[in-house]
């Protein structure tokens, strides 16, 4: 019997788990995929929004501004890269200028600090590579960037280090109300809990329906992105938005915490919640619109492209409700969900308290997690000390990103444990460089197979049927 079961190991579920892990509670996180951070959390703009976008008085506005204020501390405790680079909304004409003025006013109403509107000359000083057609901009110095899956992995790892459990490959099929709480079933497992929190992202409507709540409807909105090589990372320093208009929200250009340049997203409402396909039209659309913001975008420097699905709700606002005793929904957490996630966790914790959950602070709670980047960021003396203790830190496995065997072993051994190639990639950056795993993946598979004690051919890219090899060659078993 758990005190709290959280359905969904995205950034919202992860931040809630971490916040609750400071109390004396039995917590379990259920995730349908083979790893955490696999839904909307995996592929988005990676922005900590300042909070001028959401309408005054909405939950989105309130939790965005609060979350943005909390984020730096959370990242410092969890050893997650956070860069307070500031955001710009650039305008190209008088209509845009009016919209920017309205955004400024809304931001003030929402409590966003340090906002200001600048003209062309000041904008050029802030961003020398900005398009000559940009005439004004809203400057939001509190805007920041963070890596969403790094944050989620760290939050869940920290929650687990403080006693929370994680069950991956647990796809919730049914929920039964019991006398003291709920029974949550997968096709072959069951957990029981006093409280259940629905953080199922795109599927939070499906989870709600399992307790007879048909009020929520979530649909996917597709967003394609193009990631450019690190050599393009110095083209801008701020996150650059275009002014939203009748034509859409525009395409953003942003630095990432790892120094790449990110372009996107497209915005297309679709039906299929599993359709993360990129498209030729998407690439063209992104490049064409991004060109409007900067003087020149080197499209040829693309190193990868990807697609994410935003979980768009049916109310226009975040849906954070307690439809019945012991059950809380967090649904429709689209943008600014990442920015708001620490505040959502705080908000949900208070709701649980109001619903009768006793929160007793736990002795020995440790909010600090050793950063995944600890070895990479250490001094040469410190690295040599670590290599003497663990020689695997002296062996480079991923030559492009300079990732050592020691760091990969850490990723496989630490909470939440990487059990597939993509899991290692998100935790260490191995396979994320120029060769995209061409050289190192055969070796990483060897490390995974040895640590997990599974055959080499059973190692997957991201769980399920995503195996890398189908068996031994003719010289071995396969005939």
């Amino acid at each position, binding site marked *: 019997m758990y005190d709290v079961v959280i359905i969904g190991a995205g950034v919202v579920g992860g931040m809630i788990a971490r916040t609750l892990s400071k109390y004396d509670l039995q917590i379990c996180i259920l995730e349908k995929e083979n790893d955490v951070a696999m839904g909307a959390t995996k592929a988005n703009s990676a922005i900590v929004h300042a909070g001028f976008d959401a309408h005054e008085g909405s939950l989105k506005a309130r939790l965005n501004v609060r979350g943005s204020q909390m984020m730096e501390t959370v990242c410092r405790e969890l050893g997650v890269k956070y860069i307070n680079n500031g955001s710009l909304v650039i305008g190209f004409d008088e209509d845009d200028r009016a919209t920017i003025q309205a955004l400024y006013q809304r931001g003030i109403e929402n409590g966003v600090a340090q906002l200001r509107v600048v003209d062309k000359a000041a904008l050029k000083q802030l961003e020398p590579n900005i398009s000559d057609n940009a005439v004004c901009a809203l400057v939001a110095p509190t805007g920041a960037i963070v890596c969403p899956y790094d944050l989620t992995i760290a939050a869940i790892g920290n929650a687990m280090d403080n006693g929370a459990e994680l069950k991956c490959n647990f796809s919730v099929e049914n929920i039964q109300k019991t006398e003291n709480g709920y029974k949550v079933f997968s096709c072959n497992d069951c957990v029981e809990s006093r409280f259940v929190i629905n953080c199922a992202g795109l599927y939070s409507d499906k989870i709600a329906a399992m307790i007879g709540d048909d009020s929520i409807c979530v649909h996917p909105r597709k967003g394609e992105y*193009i*990631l450019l090589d690190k050599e393009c990372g110095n083209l801008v320093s701020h996150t650059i938005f275009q002014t939203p208009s009748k034509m859409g929200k525009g395409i953003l250009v942003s630095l990432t915490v790892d120094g790449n340049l990110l372009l996107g997203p497209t915005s297309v409402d679709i039906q299929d919640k*599993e359709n*993360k*396909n*990129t*498209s*030729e039209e*998407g*690439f063209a659309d992104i490049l064409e619109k991004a060109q409007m913001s900067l003087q020149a975008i080197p499209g040829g420097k*693309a*190193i*990868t*492209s*990807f697609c994410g699905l935003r979980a768009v709700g049916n109310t226009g606002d975040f849906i954070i409700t307690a439809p019945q005793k012991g059950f809380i929904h967090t649904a429709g957490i689209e943008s600014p969900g990442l920015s708001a996630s620490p505040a959502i966790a705080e908000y949900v914790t208070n709701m649980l308290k109001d619903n009768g959950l006793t929160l007793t602070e736990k002795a020995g709670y440790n909010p600090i997690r050793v950063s995944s980047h600890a070895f990479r960021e250490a001094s*040469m003396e410190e*690295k*040599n000390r670590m*290599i*003497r203790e663990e*020689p*695997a830190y*002296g*062996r*480079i496995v991923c*030559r492009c990103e*300079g990732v*050592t065997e020691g760091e990969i072993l850490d990723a496989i051994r630490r909470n939440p444990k990487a059990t597939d190639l993509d899991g290692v990639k998100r935790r260490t950056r191995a396979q994320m460089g*120029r*060769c*995209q*795993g*061409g*050289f190192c*993946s*055969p070796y990483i598979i*060897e490390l995974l197979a040895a640590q997990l004690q599974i055959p*080499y*051919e059973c190692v*997957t*890219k*991201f769980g*399920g*049927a*995503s*195996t*890398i*090899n*189908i*068996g*031994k*060659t*003719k*010289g*071995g078993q*396969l*005939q």
Partner: protein
Amino acid sequence: MRDLVIIGGGPAGMSAAIAAYESGIRDILILERDAQLGGILQQCIHNGFGLHNFGEELTGPEYAWKYEKQVRQLGIERKLNTMVLDLTEDKVITATNSEEGIFQIQAKAVILAMGCRERSKGALNIAGSRPAGIFSAGTAQKFINMKGYLPGKNVVILGSGDIGLIMARRMTLEGAKVHAVCELMPYSGGLARNIAQCLDDFGIELKLSHTVVEIHGKDRVEGVTIAKVDENRKPIAATREYIPCDTLLLSVGLIPENELSKAANVNLCRTTNGAVVDQDRQTSVPGIFACGNVLHVHDLVDFVSQEAEIAGKAAAEYVNQVQEASANIPLTTDGKIRYTVPQVITKKKDVTVYFRVGDIYKNVKINVFDGEKLVLSRKRPKVAPGEMESITIKAEQLEAATQLHFALEVM
């Protein structure tokens, strides 16, 4: 302080080390990131290596062993499992391994011999999903030849580079079915002999002017959509064709790995993606030399070994401060000839210039001009982008030269 440090223990690094030793220096160190010498040759278990240098068809490991044996006999020092992290213009090398941790070496001369890598899928921006089952051809080669595992049974190959062609045959021999090899260009970038021996002999279709436009499958590749491309290399929608398969191999080009060269402020050539070098394979940084696939992608390893000998000998002379009369003759090309190596001649002695062309041409003359004056001209029945060409210029032909322009003339 070491006399000569060679970064990379593949065919280029080993051949350079032996040549440097034979030129009289002894304080030589090879730094190799892998657990053994030989580089990419270790996974190239097919034959065809060594025809030029040894007059026999060796496998990759056999070819490598000929050099490794000499390295061992000469007692040339090497550190294995050692990755070079940084190189400065002053020739300070930072490297790491498990035994010594991170350490630095000051070298008098450095030879860059890091090889190349395969172009990855990301750079291609193919639409569709991102399932398991997409590999560069060299990665599949490593799985099969080094690890003993088969990455798939139904294969489509994009790109007709040599590794892709070799893998079409290799996977067929392992019982897989290769449904097609698609090549974006109207000609293959691979060697003619590989097309004959790896595709034609096994009845595998080479679809020229075709590309993969979409990848299908959720967990594992389930199929790809291919299409013919027009003269601007844009896919023609009406020719889209779905091929069910579980594996997509990419053989879409090789890129010299010059991150360390960049760190050392070595000038790079935009066409080769390797260093700009003189006839001694010396880069723009005095005392730093480059050879093998890190300098420009070769078609045959025999030529890698030959080039590395030049670099090894020259590095030894640099260490021993052998000076020769200096010249500065830049080499330029007409575009039909894409590049030359070397790009500059600084000593007036016999020099063999290597080059590649950008298209297939028949019955051509390679003309070398000094201004208006034709210095020399050589006929070729056929030249192709997949095959490296060379031409030797005699010392006396360089006597009055101020610059040399390489032009291709179709007869």
